[in-house]
Each structure stands twice: as structure tokens, then as C-alpha cells.
């Protein structure tokens, strides 16, 4: 479900970075409040565990294929939502930089789609309410499966929304959603069962490691006011910035001109304007990106290709010269 940079418009990426930053800032604050110095190393090693464990292929019975565990839900069930969210950010950053899984610009989207839903929704809206009356094997299975299915569905829907707002693909939103949701329903079910199997094992071996285990000191209830504040900020940023990317209407200046003149562009007459126009036309190397006096597509294409070749030659030549002189000066120094 990792989004690539090419699928995200800069405005959408910025909006999602802002949303993820709000959630990360709140998580950092909550982790600091816990005043548990041990938590940071544990988060680091657990992040590495999730990354490594996702390399294990778990056989899906009757299908011949395999799946892997759901990192967000597992981390939040072990570390809690805030520390789990921060650990997931580290995992996603490493996946993006080292394995090209996702992109640097799309990181904000991926944090939101996978870490936010997996940790905040999974832990606070599913895991904690289910475990309120005590942790049992059946509750772990139920919460894990429900959490993975729900959070993956939300993440997949967000991917479709972000792609729609970015406007990079002609695939209709309804068709994209119709493809994404059922696939992630199946993935969520399998990942939920694998995550449940691991958590049940942990519960039997070391029950005190689980979030909301009996005797665990909670550092404070999740405030609905804070939730609303985070969601309101996210909605404001998303609405404000995404609308810039989605709008195809004229901008403010064009709209004003259109209201005044009936056209989006102004035309002017007079000797000064005519002289300026003739200078612009004379100095334009490729008017309308074609040969002078010609309107063929060949001219445009050849211009582009020749230009590209020339720029590459200059670039390669400059770099080779640079390397040549660098080595020369290195020998002289030696």
C-alpha cells in the first residue's frame, strides 16, 4: 500500500505531511510524558523487529500464496499508540530510503495511511475498548483481525482519495476504490490472523508486554477534545491545500479579470506593446516549440530530443572534465 512519489502532487504531499506532523508531535509529547527512558531503545528494536518480521512469508492455507504481519497493529498492541506510531515512522522512513518502498515526498501520505490508522485507530478505538475487561485469547484474535481489516480499509481508501486529489491517473475514483477495497479486505484478514497468532503467543509467554495488560499504568486517558483538535487541524490543512491541487477554476487574478473584461487574459494595443511583442517574437528561439515558420510536430519532437542530447552531452562532459582535473590535481599533490 506504499504510495510512490510519482502518484502524489506536491500540494497533497504537503497536506499529508502536515497531518502526519500533527499526529507525530502529539505522540512525541505523550511519549515524553511517560518519562520512560527505556522506551526509546525498545521502540528502535521493535521497529527493527517489524521490518525483519515482514520478511517472513507465512503460508496462507489453500491459496498457495503467503502474507506477512501487520506492523501498525502489532506495534500499538505492544508499545501503545504513541510509541507505536513513532516506531512505525522509523520503519516507513527506512523502507522509503533503503528499499524504494514508498517515496520521500509521499512519506507523509504513507505515515498517515499506514501508521496513523494502524496505531491510533487500531489501538485506541479497537484494542483498548476490547481489552477493557481483561485480555483473553478470543479478544486478542477479534481485536487483531478487526483492527487490521478496518485500518487497512481506511488506509486503502485514503490512497484512493490522495490519488484522486493529485490528479495523476485517469483511472476513475470509483473504479480505483472498487479495486483497492476488496484486495485490502483479504489482505487485512490474513494479516489480522498472523498478527493475532503472534500476540496470542506473547500473551501466553509474557502477558505483561501487551498494551492495556492488567496492572499496566496508563499515563492518561485519550482526550476526545485532543482527538477533535487533531482531526480539525488535519481537516483544515487537507481541505485548504488539497483544494489548491484539485481546483481547475481560474485563480483569483484571472477571476477578477474575467469579471471585469469577460476574458481571462488582457490584451493591449499601442506602439510600446507592439514593439515589445515584436521583440519577444524575434528573440524566441522556438516559437510554440517548433521550427521557425513551421507548425509540424516533428519540429517540436526533434527540438526536444536534440536539446536533451545536447544538455546530456554538456552535463556528462562537464562531469568527466571535473573528474579528470580532480584526479590530475590529486596526482600532483601525491
Amino acid at each position, binding site marked *: 500500500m506504499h504510495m510512490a*512519489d*510519482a*502518484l*502524489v*502532487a*506536491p500540494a497533497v*504531499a504537503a497536506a499529508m505531511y502536515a497531518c502526519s506532523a500533527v499526529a*507525530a508531535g502529539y505522540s512525541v509529547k505523550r*511519549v515524553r510524558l511517560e518519562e520512560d*527512558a527505556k522506551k*526509546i*531503545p*525498545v521502540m*528502535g*528494536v*521493535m*521497529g*527493527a523487529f517489524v521490518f525483519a*518480521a515482514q520478511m517472513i*512469508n507465512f*503460508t496462507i492455507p489453500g491459496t498457495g500464496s503467503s502474507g506477512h504481519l501487520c506492523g501498525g497493529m502489532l506495534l500499538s498492541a*505492544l508499545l501503545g499508540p504513541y510509541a507505536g506510531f513513532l*516506531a512505525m*515512522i*522509523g520503519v516507513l522512513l*527506512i523502507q522509503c*530510503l533503503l*528499499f*524504494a*518502498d514508498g*517515496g*520521500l*515526498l509521499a512519506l507523509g501520505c504513507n505515515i498517515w495511511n499506514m501508521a496513523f490508522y494502524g496505531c491510533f485507530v487500531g489501538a485506541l478505538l479497537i484494542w483498548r475498548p476490547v481489552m477493557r475487561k481483561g485480555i483473553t485469547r478470543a479478544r486478542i484474535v477479534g481485536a487483531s483481525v478487526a483492527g487490521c481489516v478496518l485500518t487497512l480499509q481506511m488506509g486503502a481508501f485514503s490512497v484512493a482519495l490522495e490519488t484522486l486529489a493529485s490528479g495523476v*491517473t*485517469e483511472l*476513475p475514483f470509483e473504479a480505483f476504490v472498487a479495486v483497492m477495497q476488496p484486495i485490502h479486505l483479504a489482505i487485512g484478514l490474513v494479516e489480522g490472523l498472523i498478527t493475532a*497468532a*503472534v500476540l496470542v*503467543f506473547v500473551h501466553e509467554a*509474557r502477558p505483561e508486554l501487551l498494551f492495556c495488560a492488567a496492572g499496566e499504568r496508563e499515563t492518561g486517558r485519550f482526550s476526545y477534545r485532543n482527538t477533535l483538535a487533531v482531526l480539525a487541524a488535519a481537516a483544515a490543512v487537507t481541505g485548504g491545500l488539497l483544494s489548491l491541487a484539485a481546483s481547475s477554476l481560474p485563480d483569483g487574478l484571472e477571476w477578477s479579470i474575467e469579471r471585469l473584461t469577460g476574458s481571462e487574459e488582457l490584451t493591449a494595443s499601442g506602439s510600446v506593446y507592439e514593439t515589445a511583442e515584436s521583440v519577444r517574437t524575434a528573440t524566441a*528561439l*522556438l516559437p510554440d*516549440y517548433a*521550427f521557425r515558420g513551421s*507548425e*509540424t*510536430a516533428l*519540429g*517540436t519532437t*526533434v*527540438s*526536444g530530443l*536534440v*536539446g536533451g542530447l*545536447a*544538455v546530456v552531452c554538456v*552535463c556528462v562532459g*562537464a*562531469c568527466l572534465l571535473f*573528474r579528470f582535473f580532480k584526479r590530475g590535481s590529486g596526482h600532483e599533490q601525491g
Partner: protein
Amino acid sequence: MNRAEGAAREISRLDMLARRDQRVNRIHPLVKFLLTVGYIAAVVSFPKYDVFGLLGMMVYPIATFLLGELSVRDAFRRLRVVLPLVCVAGLFNPLLDQNRVRLGDVWISAGVLSMLTLMGKGVFSLLASYLLIATTTAEALCGALSMLRLPEAVITQFLLTFRYITVLLEEVGRMTQAYALRAPRQKGVHRKVWGPFAGQLLLRSMDRANEVYESMLLRGFSGKRFYQRQRTPLCGRDLAYGAFWLALFALFRFFPVLLLVGGIFL
């Protein structure tokens, strides 16, 4: 070699590349990080039919590959992960975008142009990320992130995760190899041992985390300033390098440089 061992080897390879003494490696990590983000933002902001405009952005990867003496083949091997997704999203464009764009007096399928642009954006942005991590160590990157005032908890956590990934990947590699030798005809881990297989690894990881924490305490860790030593001051050469490339990105983004250069020769 299984997946986990392959991933561990890839991390080690990138770490070795980043530690070489090349000129690009010596550029300040903050400058390289901001340049990478700026480059990707410029690349993805191109209009969907502007293939020639986008092509001009190949200058940065070409120059960095040459100056950093990096293998282009290794970089393109990484494309196999992300390119299928971009291709799937782009392949629908020729079918669904039936509009035609006029180039001179010839009409060209707009869907094909937008598909090519999308694929180009995917390739260029991926190469830029690769160039960043192949010329910058994780510690240096953390120093750069700290200069951007990112929370210490996030940076320390990233660095620890990065350091322990190799250890755990090697452990997973040994476990999966041992399992595969005992169950040679089985694809993946059987559902009966899903829990114990990953659960054992998880419990060992938790114990390892405690040992790591104790070792860090003995070395003076107090929860803060874990990566401060990696911060180095910016010098004029770094700023000039960054300013040069940013100016070039702006030039290629806002002017049809390839078409203008081509026009000189024709």
C-alpha cells in the same frame, strides 16, 4: 540467499557506498537532503503532458551518478519494486484519456504522453532517493534531520531501528533457512507455527532491547543528544552546491530548456 539475507546485504552495501570518500559524499547532508526533497517536488510538479520539460530533470541524477562514481545498474535494480505500481496507474491513461494534444499540426494521444510523464516522474524521484542514501550515512542524515528541528525521539528511534535491522534480518535469515531445511517442500511458514515462529523472535528482540538499553546507559545515554556528534557546520562550498542545483531545477522547471537548446542546433 533468502529475502531477509538479501535485505541485510543491501543495507550493508548502501552503508559502504555512503562511507566512501567521494566529493558528493562530502557535501553537507542537510544540503543533499533538501536538494533531494526539492528535486522530487520539482519533478512531480510537472504538468502531466510535459514530457520534454520533465526530461530536462535527468541532469541531476546523471551528474550525481558520475561525480559520485555510482553504478547505474544497481540503482535501476531498485526500480523493480516501485515501477510496477506506477505503471499500473499509468497504463490506464492511454485507455481512459481519449483526448489528443496538438503538437504543431499533428495530434498525439494525450493518454500516452501522461503515461510517459508518470513513469518518468517515478524513475527520477526514485533515483534521487537512491542518490541521497548512497552518498549519505544514516548518522549524517540524522544530524541533518536534527538541524531541521525534528523531535529527538523520532531521530533516535530511526537511528536505532536502522542499526538493529541488520542484526534482526540476519537472525530472521537463519530462522527461515533452518525452517526451510526442515520443511523443504513448504512455501512459507505453516499456520500452526505462525505464532511461535515470529513470537520467539519478538521475545528475543524485547530482551535484546533491554540489553541495548543497559549498554547505552553504561555509555552515558540519558535519552537526549544521542546523535549530536554527527552535526557538522555548513560551509560556503555546500551552500554554493545547493544554490547551483536549486537554480538549475528552477530553470528546467519553468523554462523549456531542452526545446530551446534543440532550437539552437536546428
